[in-house]
């Protein structure tokens, strides 16, 4: 599926702005971004509920143009599920097949198989209102998958579920996707969900697609300040180039950052808190590491680890440590040393 130059304007609001995106067959692709960035609008343009103001949507090599939703080889799982309240579970799931004129006995067979796949065969005569949220979610999934679409569109399908159920459904969804081999386009504003489930992620902001890549690439090598900041926790430090791969931060301390060129220019470097390490001020550190002396300002307990706020070189860095046996804890106010491998730092555009 290919989107090229897709723009959608609602009056003065540009919801999606010149989007170019290629989604590969059979991949689990997530669109990730904050509220109002245009994720739903993008999905609706693929489904045909909304037409682009300009641009092209091609699915399986076919230009979609102004084709209505019923003539597109895609199906949607809605955030609110949109199950038909006046039909049984089986009628809901069989609706698409019936509309396409599939025979009665084949419908029954495929509906049974689809309900089996989502472990709801025993509820086929229930009404949607008699099901729990998680069950409704699975009916919505079965209703879309039974049609064997080329692409399945999911708009925050787990948004209405509680945390435990959401995590269970994430695993279930991912397994299902691998089993059926259908392309999933998954909209979410939950970065963890996107990271754990996706083959590739596209990060959006204000209608624009900022970066597309595998989860690791997005997390480890964000190219823009927005992507770095939106996904996980990160330290963004403004620095001045000091020549030969060095930058000067805050009060003038120099640290090595690979890929920095020239001198005098301003750059932003991004450092993940878990890539920074703490040690006593005069302890040995690995060769080649950057080191900065500082003072612990605050320590926050997370159960599986600690986050330290450390004042160093005229700025504040967040440092994350795992809660491992024998871990040395530092109290607020103690002198400390922060060190990290230069490769942990990333240059990002503002």
């Amino acid at each position: 599926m290919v989107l090229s130059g897709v723009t959608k304007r609602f009056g003065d609001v540009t919801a999606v702005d010149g989007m170019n995106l290629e989604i590969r067959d059979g991949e689990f692709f997530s669109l990730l971004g904050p509220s109002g960035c245009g994720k739903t609008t993008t999905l609706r343009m693929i489904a045909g509920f909304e037409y682009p103001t300009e641009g092209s949507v091609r699915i399986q090599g076919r230009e979609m143009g102004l084709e209505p939703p019923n003539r597109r080889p895609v199906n949607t799982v809605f955030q609110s599920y949109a199950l038909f309240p006046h039909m049984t579970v089986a009628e809901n799931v069989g609706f698409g097949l019936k509309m396409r004129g599939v025979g009665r006995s084949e419908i029954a067979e495929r509906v049974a198989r689809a309900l089996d796949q989502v472990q709801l065969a025993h509820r086929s005569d229930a009404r949607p209102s008699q099901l729990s949220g998680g069950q409704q979610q699975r009916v919505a999934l079965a209703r879309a998958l039974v049609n064997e679409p080329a692409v399945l569109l999911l708009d925050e399908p787990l948004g209405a579920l509680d945390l435990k159920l959401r995590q269970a459904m994430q695993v279930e969804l991912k397994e299902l996707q691998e089993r059926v081999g259908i392309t999933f386009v998954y909209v979410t504003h939950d970065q963890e969900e996107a990271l754990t489930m996706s083959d590739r992620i596209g990060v959006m902001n204000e209608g624009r697609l900022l970066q597309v890549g595998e989860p690791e690439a997005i997390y480890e090598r964000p190219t823009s300040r927005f992507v770095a900041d939106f996904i996980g926790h990160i330290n963004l430090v403004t620095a001045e180039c000091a020549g030969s791969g060095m930058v000067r931060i805050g009060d003038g301390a120099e640290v090595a950052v690979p890929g920095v060129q020239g001198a005098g220019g301003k750059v932003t470097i991004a450092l993940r808190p878990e890539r920074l390490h703490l040690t006593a001020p005069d302890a040995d550190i690995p060769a080649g590491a950057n080191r900065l002396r500082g003072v612990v300002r605050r320590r926050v307990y997370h159960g599986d680890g600690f986050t330290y706020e450390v004042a160093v070189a005229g700025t504040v860095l967040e440092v994350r440590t795992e809660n491992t046996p024998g871990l040395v804890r530092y109290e607020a106010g103690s002198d400390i040393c922060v060190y990290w491998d230069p490769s942990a730092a990333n240059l990002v555009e503002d």
Partner: protein
Amino acid sequence: MAAPVTPELEAAAERAQARRGLLVSLPAYAYLVVFFAIPLVIVFVVSVFGRRNPRGATVYGPPTLDAYRKIFEPGPDGSYLVLEIVWRSLWLSVVTTIVCLLLAYPLAYYIATRTPRVRNALLVLVMIPFWSNFLVRTYAWRVLLGRSGPVTAVTSALGLTDTPMIFTVNAVLIGLVYGFLPFMVLPLYAAIERMDWSLVEAARDLYASGWQAFRKITWPLSRPGVIAGSILVFIPAFGAYVTPEILGGSKTTLLGSYIVRQFLQARDAPFGSALSFVLMSVMLGATIVYFRTGARNL
């Protein structure tokens, strides 16, 4: 100082709550009893215990079903006049309901799918007729459908007919549809407006054409509005009095007018009461049947 809650205290609190609820709804109950339940009992008593004496006064004696029997008996000329009138009232109100539904549904759908501002403006337009008196508006139709009215001018110019429509069944039908249309539009609008449109999108997504999505989703989900609107039109149309009096002729007498005539001209209060009672029973029956079928299909 408050005491810890015990089951007795909780029960007492709930009883107090229920009493307060009753107190608040007392005016409504009083209204229903005084203006509905008591008159209904009076009508029933007159129809069963009353007899018309030769001077047109009502006298009371042991219970009898004579007044009800009279409905099914042929008149002096051998025709079943009363049954004819009941039948005419029935089909005319059914046709009125259907015509109203056919006209109102597209209108309500159109209004419900506009932006909120346009929607409110259109709703005001639907309700504007209520600003002037029903009687006055019905007399206006008398002019419109009359001998020198525009409708007759058009039909005779087209070479269809020179006879004005006034005082015919069709004139009554037009008057009834005109009068009751808003009562169909408003509940339909309410039902369509609160519909979840993502359901229609889901149907379109599942290969339904626009028409199929309407048939399978919009129509069944707007059925509560169809039921409410139909009842609101059918019941007053069945008992209509003003419209057929003004726009109808002697051959189009409806039940409402006929009942009034029993009281005011024939001075047969027991028979008029019996007819009223039958009228109300038919309405009640129709309402129950309609609600039952509607509820089952939902």
